[in-house]
């Protein structure tokens, strides 16, 4: 029988949407599910050490495949000497799972031979569970003294969260400047959409790192993804190609983004964006 532990992140005491996706995945493994919440500013060293002490007896330990889960869960794997599988997109049975490799250009199906396995769950691959799980918050009392949380520079926004929004509009290097991203933001506000970006746009300093969609960055799968001035490097496609409908707007007809787009518009984004804003 499966006994499942979910490690969830709380930010200032608040549940994060990823936990509902983890619960949905856990329900495919069994009904004996416990959810533990860790506050975001607790270090991975202290959190993993605490969880390792109570991990005995759990067959599956789950965390979301975001920067929280990716930081803590492998450390726990090292402490427990229990194998871990990253970024699970499909659960076949309690021992068999599928996950993407090579930035989603291939999928591997693997079978686990150990009694205990750790899994990070790709939130976009599992629907959100509709129930509110009972969550136990852990109070970390023992500090190993290895590292200290200093600060988090958060970029607050009134727009929906990038990873859970129904509509995402993302900009790339084609936007050319930080100021031009405001055009995307105005359209996003009309659509109640989140704003994302390609690596190139983040590297160029147009927007902060937490806007980045891609293999490095956030994995999104909204109902509608609008890519503006994004060429479509493998790195970016890995983060958005599971979106239900993809729109690409780019002046270069050979841009790889068009190969995966449902609707492609070859045009100058500086003409398209004002027209789009006016007509929405």
């Amino acid at each position, binding site marked *: 029988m499966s006994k499942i532990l979910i490690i969830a992140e709380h930010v200032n005491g608040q549940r994060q949407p990823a936990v509902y996706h983890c619960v949905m995945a856990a329900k495919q493994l069994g009904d004996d599910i416990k959810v533990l919440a860790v506050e975001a500013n607790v270090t991975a060293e202290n959190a993993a050490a605490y969880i390792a002490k109570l991990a005995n007896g759990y067959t599956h330990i789950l965390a979301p495949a975001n920067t929280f889960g990716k930081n803590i869960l492998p450390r726990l*794997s090292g402490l427990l000497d229990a*194998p871990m*599988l990253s970024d699970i997109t499909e659960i076949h049975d309690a021992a068999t799972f599928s996950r993407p490799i090579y930035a989603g250009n291939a999928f591997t199906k693997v079978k686990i031979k150990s009694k205990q396995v750790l899994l990070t769950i790709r939130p976009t691959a599992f629907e959100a569970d509709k129930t509110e799980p009972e969550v136990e918050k852990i109070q970390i009392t023992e500090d190993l003294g290895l590292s200290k949380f200093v600060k988090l520079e958060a970029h607050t926004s009134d727009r929906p969260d990038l990873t859970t929004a129904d509509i995402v509009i993302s900009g790339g290097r084609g936007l050319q400047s930080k100021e031009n991203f405001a055009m995307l933001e105005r359209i996003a506000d009309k659509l109640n959409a989140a704003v994302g970006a390609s690596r190139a746009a983040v590297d160029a300093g147009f927007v902060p790192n*937490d806007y980045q969609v891609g293999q490095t960055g956030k994995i999104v799968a909204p109902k*509608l993804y609008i890519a503006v001035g994004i060429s479509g490097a493998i790195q970016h496609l890995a983060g958005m190609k599971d979106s239900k409908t993809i729109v690409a707007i780019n002046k270069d007809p050979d841009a790889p983004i068009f190969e995966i787009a449902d*609707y492609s518009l070859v045009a100058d984004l500086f003409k398209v964006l004002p027209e789009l804003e006016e007509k929405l």
Partner: protein
Amino acid sequence: MNILIPIKRVIDYKVPVRVKPDHSGVVTENIKMSMNPFDEIALEEAIRLKEKGIASQLTAVTIGTQACQDILRHAYALGVDQAMLLETDKSLEPLAIGNILKAIADKTDAQLIIMGKQAIDDDNNQAGQILAAKLGWAQACFASEVNIEGDSATVVREVDGGLETLKLQLPAVITTDLRLNEPRLAKLPDIMKAKSKTIEIIPVSDLGIDLPEQIEILETTPPKPRAKGQMVGSVDELLEKLRDLM
């Protein structure tokens, strides 16, 4: 301070990956192989720490077949002092990698390990954290800024909520994200000199280390193809198509 930089040989990031028709893996024959891009960033960071006088000895280490010597030569050309190949023809699991690297960290008396946050083949993003756990060291993953002062490191990490700053007590493991630095290119004379440098080769089986085998790969398949899309000629036509979605 000695720095250990574990690196991995992977299919070059510019090469399109193809799944073998029998689903036994991906095609690697006659394909350009390179150092994992995140590891190049790790190497660059270590070299900069040596240039600043903070690091003294840089050791690059990889695990794999004799073919992996090419990335170690590349590491020599860029500026490491020592290169080690832990030779095996097996594909090892992350916990096994952790066990091996722990032994090498001890052997090289490393106070800092800098490595890529993930390899672009398996995309596991595990080895650094597992290694830190096994060593009982501090960890900072997805680093975009590293500052070493005395026996502590201040690291800015790229997290989903923004930029997080941690202060680590050394020794520590730092895994690199894309924006930490821009790796330099090797200079031709250094590439030539690297050819004659010694690579220490140790068979993994000689280490007497536990190499767990708990993950069986059943098959590798290509992603499901997307339905073919269509061109639209104008903003009006696009909005017409999207009417039900917005």
